[in-house]
């Protein structure tokens, strides 16, 4: 992983900093140049609260290279924010269900390259 590819995503991945359309208030992570709901190009920075609800989930038994499973993957709807795909950490197969409340935390995702550079981002935990 090249540093610049990692670096530019840090505000979104570390701090859940995205954008909100000034016209229709739709929330995006990452932010965009054009709102897909109303076409506006005016956005304000938004930092999402970090709590949300499980919209759907699965237990991944065959992870991609660099990731060790099994782990629970979910689509989480952030409170006042967008839906996002994230793992639910420390969660067994039968523990999560649709509608569960979660909190988003800063966690290690994977490590890459011969040097084992650590890659961080967001994961959910059940509350």
């Amino acid at each position, binding site marked *: 992983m090249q540093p610049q590819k990692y670096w530019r995503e840090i505000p979104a991945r570390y701090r859940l900093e995205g954008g909100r359309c000034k016209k229709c208030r739709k929330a995006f992570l990452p932010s965009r140049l054009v709102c897909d709901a109303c076409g506006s190009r005016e956005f304000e920075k938004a930092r999402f609260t970090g709590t949300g609800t499980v919209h*759907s989930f*699965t237990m991944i038994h065959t*992870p991609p290279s660099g990731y060790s499973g099994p782990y629970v993957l979910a689509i989480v709807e952030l409170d006042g924010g967008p839906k996002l*795909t994230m793992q639910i950490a420390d969660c067994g197969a039968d523990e999560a269900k649709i509608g569960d409340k979660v909190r988003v935390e800063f966690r290690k995702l994977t490590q890459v390259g011969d040097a084992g550079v650590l890659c961080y981002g967001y994961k959910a935990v059940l509350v």
Partner: protein
Amino acid sequence: MRDVSIVGVGIGHWGELWNDSLRDLAVAASLKAIADAGVDRVDSAVIGCMSSGIFTGQEHLASVLGDYLGRGPLPVTRVESACASGALAFKAGYAEVAAGISDVVLVCGAEKMNDLDGSESTYALGTAADQEYEGYNGATFPGLYAMMALRHMHEFGTTRRQLSLVAVKNHANGLQNPNAQFQMAITPEDVEKSAKVADPLRLLDCSPVTDGAAALILVPTELAKKLAPGGAPVAVRGIGHATDTIALHSRASLTRLRAVEVSAERAYQSAGVKPADIHLAEVHDCFTIAELMAMEALGFAAPGQSGPMVERGETAIGGRIPINPSGGLKSKGHPVGATGVAQILEIVEQLRGQAGGRQVKGAKLGLAQNMGGTGGSSIVTILGA
């Protein structure tokens, strides 16, 4: 715009083809299609391929195909839209003939997937999702479709058994297809006891990793009348094409395939037909849940009614609307760039009456639906005898 007909088809056996390279597969299918069409020239070619660069290390397929076909200066275009690359190549070839740019166009779809190991090919396929905001967080394609499946079960009461019956039907059909990767019957219990991939999806809910190619020859319908192809010319009645968000989580609903709905509306409109007029369909069953959701998006089933419809046998050969008589991606195999071309090829063989043991009797109007990623792109093609 000129009317366009398909006059040639070419396909070989699909599977783990260790001895065949990407160029071997593409050229062999193309030569068969040219011979089947009975044409003495090709004016232009389009090749659909998702990711030859990652799967084999080779890009620049335009040059590779022209070169190894032995037709040096032939203009060739390579087209990519993930797993919908094949049907998009068909659309590009169709447009070229319809617009009068070329008269005889070769459309080839090809993918060589078994030059990589399992986790590398999972990565290659994963590039069809949002790499930064799905892949980075550990999403896989089975995982994304699994989350669609769980939502479909939650909202409509779709059952584990209904998913299994999709795979069972497609394997039964594939048993009649000599080119299919898996020619074996399976039971619902086989599906439900197969290895877990991403709950609720198991191994036998998933289409396989496949090497394969397929090719078609397109000409203006006026010219088709002067040729003597291997079967009756089949007319392209309508094509619809649409996109949706790259990330599944950006969609308002996980249980609707909006790009499929819109591309279907456009195809029905351009063909002047409605879902009830269609005699058979090839749909993009990359996972069992995808076939159910495609049936709903294409208007064959009301939202939530696809599972019960499969249970009643309405989508089997001999049923009200046979779906995936070829065996589908599940049994025939899924060389991603080739799939869309092969779906159209199956409809052509069915409308020609050349589908052997899987022939849908009296088929006059068929539909093929090919999509990329989690439905981020979709092409629907309607063909008539």
